[in-house]
């Protein structure tokens, strides 16, 4: 019998009515010694069944507790923990936090120097996912995130493939990355933000305004250090794999 089904609701209403009827019928019957406990018990039973019937009717209408399982507080869905992400090069960077990173296809970026990747202290021991600071033409900040320092050259084209490659190699967050760009690299930074919507949380430029257009919070600073400090503060924290529930729609 279901909690919100008509049989239970009607049955409880009928039981409440019967208990009320018995209360009236038995009120003056029998000796006083037997009458008193009968009165008390049948009155309490009538009241209980009446309250129960009202509660069942209301619950049937609102579906607060659609099943006995729900009423017992059993959801049947314990929160799981998302699988801890791991990067292909975690072991290399555990040995050397500034290990060489030269993913396949990186030659096509035509950078003036190979990308320099630095993982934060504790990367090897803390199984966290880290946001990324992408520095276009500057130096690392030494913050609690993964830093990628790039030296774009005059012929450097799109860097849109870089985040995907880095995601495969290291434990990065899927969003909340920040960009810091030297004056000459502002157009490249703007293009990157536009090519990867939702990836970057902020763009800091040094000595050159970013202009209008980037769909992320943008600020201009005089010094590289001020720009990186602000950019790091705009990123999310490095976090352990989150608690998760099953999803309704594909991600």
């Amino acid at each position, binding site marked *: 019998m279901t909690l919100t089904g008509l049989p239970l609701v009607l049955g409880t209403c009928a039981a409440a009515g019967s208990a009320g009827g018995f209360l009236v019928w038995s009120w003056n019957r029998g000796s006083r010694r037997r009458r008193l406990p009968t009165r008390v018990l049948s009155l309490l039973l009538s009241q209980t069944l009446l309250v129960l019937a009202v509660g069942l009717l209301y619950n049937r209408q609102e579906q607060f507790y659609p099943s006995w399982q*729900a009423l017992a507080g059993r959801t049947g869905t314990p929160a799981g923990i998302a699988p801890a992400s791991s990067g292909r090069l975690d072991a290399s960077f555990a040995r050397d936090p500034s290990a060489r990173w030269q993913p396949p296809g990186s030659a096509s970026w035509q950078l003036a120097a190979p990308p320099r990747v630095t993982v934060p202290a504790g990367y090897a021991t803390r199984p966290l996912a880290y946001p990324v600071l992408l520095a276009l033409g500057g130096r690392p900040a030494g913050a609690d995130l993964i830093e990628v320092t790039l030296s774009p050259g005059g012929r450097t084209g799109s860097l849109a493939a870089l985040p995907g490659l880095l995601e495969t190699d290291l434990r990065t967050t899927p969003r909340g990355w920040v960009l810091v760009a030297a004056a000459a690299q502002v157009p490249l930074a703007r293009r990157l933000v536009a090519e990867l919507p939702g990836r970057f949380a902020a763009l800091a430029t040094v000595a050159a305004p970013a202009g209008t257009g980037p769909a992320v919070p943008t600020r201009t600073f005089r010094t590289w250090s001020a720009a990186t400090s602000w950019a790091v503060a705009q990123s999310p924290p490095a*976090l352990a794999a989150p608690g998760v529930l099953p999803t309704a729609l594909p991600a």
Partner: protein
Amino acid sequence: MRIDGLPLLATALALVAGSAVAVAVRWERAGRIARAGLISACTLSVVATSAIELNRLTEAYPSWSALGGVQEDPAAPPPPVESASGPGGRIVEITVAGRVSHMTMPAYVYLPPGYARSHERYPVIEALHGFPGSPKSWLRRLDVRRHLDQEIATGRMAPTVVVFAYQTPDPLVDTECTDLAGGPKAETFLTVDVPAAVRAGFRVRSDGPAWGLAGYSAGGFCAADLLLRHPRQYAAAASLSGYASPGIKVGDGSELTTHNVAWRLRHLPQPRAGLYLAYAADDPPSRRDGLTMARLARPPLSVTTAVVAHGGHSDAVWQAMEAPAFDWLSSWLTRPAATP
């Protein structure tokens, strides 16, 4: 004796039993007026007991003063910290004097472990209750402090200040966090006065990307609605068993348009923000609305869905949802930082 405590409920049940005994014993000797009194006592005791248990379930009136409609005095010193024991975070009570909304209400603030020793400014989540309900529902029914402590301790959530504010000045008036025409200005209270009070009283970040919203049931609608209406002020919202429409009349017809999440998603540009939609599979209204909102969402709005198999529209469902929702929110908010 607390209004939502077991002793009061036990006393009420004793009165039900006592009045039943009194009716049974005194019936023959009582006159007409006395009999009417006995029946009234019997009925009233049952109604009162039911009301006490309903209030225990919803925390609509979390204290006797709330039942009496006593307004908080904004100038009064804050009451003592509610729960400061143990190594976890603590909850403090503040009074938000609504200078813009003219709603003056208490609110509760979760301060994460390490807050007192730190000099950083923290991200903030505004957590909204259902209707009927009160912020105490989060604290007592959903045991939110334990969940927050656990998620922060395990590193799944960053240390965050969480604010539990009222969405109505009258437990019988459902505002759905809107400015009701001719009524309470709950939206203004929650988006102007509460943030101002929190920024003034606590070390929190003031920038929008550090602020998020969470809510269950009516509070879930509130979270989604306020996110879409104030995307510069909030970066993300978690709606637990929330709806796509307020289900009330705001007074200006906006429940069909600008206060309707589904309408906004269909007709207005969608903001760059995150929206977490969780529901129980056996809760048809919030399941239907959750799926509708998820299907209507378009980039740059990012939607994550979460489904609990059973539980309907109940505390057990929200308890199952709250830790994953807080983890998700934390990944959308900026980190604790020294910057203002």
